[in-house]
């Protein structure tokens, strides 16, 4: 504006005594007058108009709202639900008449149960003196104690129910989730709790969804995931000992099997050998028998042809072969009756040695 003002001043000086009261060019004077005339009819200053404009603008803005792809806008007129706005630009009556609550219906939210990192819950009545009532600590069906942590992932499936049917749907989800999990775990042994987590997760999810639907929370459980279940720390060692005992048992069995496998095939081999040896023996006997028989028969055949002389020959041949080999020989007359004095056999031998 200062620039215009200077320009006007220069014009004034330049134009000299050409004109009216203010020394402005007449057309400009007209314009200012017109503005003044425009302001007059309301009889008020410019302040209220500006306020009014801002108010109008604010009302205008409150009539438009935007919903993202993953959201729903729940519109209430004087508190009463009227419609649900869908993604895009939406219009409603100005605030005061209609209000909109935008709910994210595709985002997956999660709640954790029984983790060490769990933050203390706000507004819960218990906290002091309830250390013994830890979230993850549960009684099993065989009255043992197990540690069961889990995660629930959920999504809002019905924004109307979620907003209006339950005062604190998330709190309800937490409470229900715990109650349901305990119910499922309560019907299982500690062994099942540790080894059959998937089964538990499936049953708990079904039951929980049923309860949430019954309460019209508008919450849809996407996934219920069991984390590593365990037994409380003081008992863990004894559970490990069982696993170790299982290993030991297997080891013992393997060792025995090894022993067995070491001994039996060797024994089978030996048995085979014994049998083969027996076969050899039998063969030997038979063959020898056959040989002996053949020999005997051969000799016999010749003998049969000349019995007397052959027998005689064989006898003499034997003597011929035998006699030189023999030690002392005593030939005694047949009439000699008393033999013993002559035959001091042992002594003779002893003297020779």
């Amino acid at each position: 504006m200062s620039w215009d003002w200077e320009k006007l001043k220069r014009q004034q000086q330049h134009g000299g005594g050409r004109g009216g009261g203010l020394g402005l060019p007449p057309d400009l004077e007209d314009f200012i007058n017109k503005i003044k005339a425009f302001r007059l009819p309301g009889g008020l200053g410019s302040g209220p108009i500006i306020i009014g404009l801002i108010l109008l603008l604010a009302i205008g803005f409150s009539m438009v709202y935007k919903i993202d792809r993953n959201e729903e806008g729940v519109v209430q007129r004087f508190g009463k639900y009227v419609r649900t706005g869908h993604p895009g630009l939406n219009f409603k009556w100005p605030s005061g008449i209609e209000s909109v609550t935008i709910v994210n219906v595709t985002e997956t939210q999660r709640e954790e149960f029984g983790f060490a990192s769990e933050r203390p819950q706000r507004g819960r009545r218990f906290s002091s003196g309830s250390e013994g009532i830890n979230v993850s600590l549960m009684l099993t069906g065989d009255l043992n104690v197990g540690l069961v942590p889990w995660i629930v992932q959920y999504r809002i499936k019905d924004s109307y129910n979620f907003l209006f049917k339950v005062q604190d749907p998330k709190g309800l989800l937490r409470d229900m989730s715990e109650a349901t999990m305990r119910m499922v775990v309560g019907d299982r042994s500690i062994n099942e709790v540790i080894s059959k987590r998937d089964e538990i997760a499936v049953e708990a999810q079904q039951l929980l969804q049923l309860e949430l639907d019954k309460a019209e929370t508008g919450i849809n459980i996407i996934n219920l995931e069991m984390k590593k279940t365990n037994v409380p720390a003081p008992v863990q060692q004894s559970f490990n000992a069982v696993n170790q005992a299982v290993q030991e048992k297997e080891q013992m069995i393997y060792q025995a099997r090894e022993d067995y496998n070491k001994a039996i095939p060797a024994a089978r081999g030996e048995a085979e050998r014994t049998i083969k040896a027996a076969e050899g023996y039998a063969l030997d006997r038979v063959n020898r028998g056959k040989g002996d028989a053949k020999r005997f028969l051969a000799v016999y055949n010749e003998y049969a042809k000349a019995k007397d002389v052959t027998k005689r020959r064989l006898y003499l041949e034997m003597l011929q072969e035998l006699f030189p080999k023999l030690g002392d020989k005593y030939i005694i007359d047949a009439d000699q009756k008393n033999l013993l004095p002559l035959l001091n056999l042992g002594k003779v031998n002893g003297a020779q040695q």
Partner: protein
Amino acid sequence: MKYRNVIIPLLIAIVVLVYLSAFAVDETEQVVITQFGKVIRTKTEAGLDFKWPWRKATYFPKNLLGWDGEPGQIPTLEKTYIWVDSFARWKIVDPESFFRRVGDIPKARRQLNDIIDAAVRNLITENKLIEAVRKSNRELVLEVSSSGTRQDERDTYAITTGRQKITARILAQAKPKVAERGIALVDVKIKRINYVEQVRQSVYGRMIAERNQIAERYRSEGEGESQKILGDKERDLKQITSEAYKTAQEIKGKGDAEATSIYAKAYGVDPAFYSFTKTREIYTEALGQDSHLVLSTNSEFFKYLKGYTE
């Protein structure tokens, strides 16, 4: 100008009156309209409504409300002390009665505390612990083992009530007591049940003992199994060697028999000759340097020593 002086204040007064008379009720709310403490009407529908400005609107929630119990130590039927933490859900179904008999939400919660806690206590004390823990008589899968399933009262006990019936009875006990207050108790559930600290320690002790026993059983099972295998080994060894011996003897016997028959057949032709030849052989083999021979001159061999005549 006279009209103006009247109309403008009048308009303003009407606007103010309408503004003061109008009230909005949210979807989650219901309203009791009172005039100097006296209930005129209730409104449970959401939306815009009007009342005289001097009448008072008291808002109550219409949706499902939560109640979270104070965890307490309660003895069960068998006198085991346990922590029980329950929660309930309730609704104001009769705002007028609620307004008259209760007043506001904090008061309602306090009254619910008394009623529900008492019911929970009653039912827990009347039942065995196992009844509150289990919901069915589903057969538990115990230690996976080849032999010797543990037979314990805890494992074979058949529940007659179960958790769901217990909570149903808690609800049944508490429900009529709150009904006259305009409150509908939707359900009561046991959120957490646990042993109290001292009991827990002894339960841990029992669990440890139980596990040790299971471990021992595994070990002895291993021992037994291995002994069985070793026994099998010995048996199989004996079987194998004895069978081999048997077969060998059979074979040998057969051989012997065959040989015998061969000999018999051959020597049977002339036993005397056999005897002669065999004896001859034996003499040759059996007699030697260390044998002394005493012969009579009468013998065949020396007959020529005496003379040559026949």
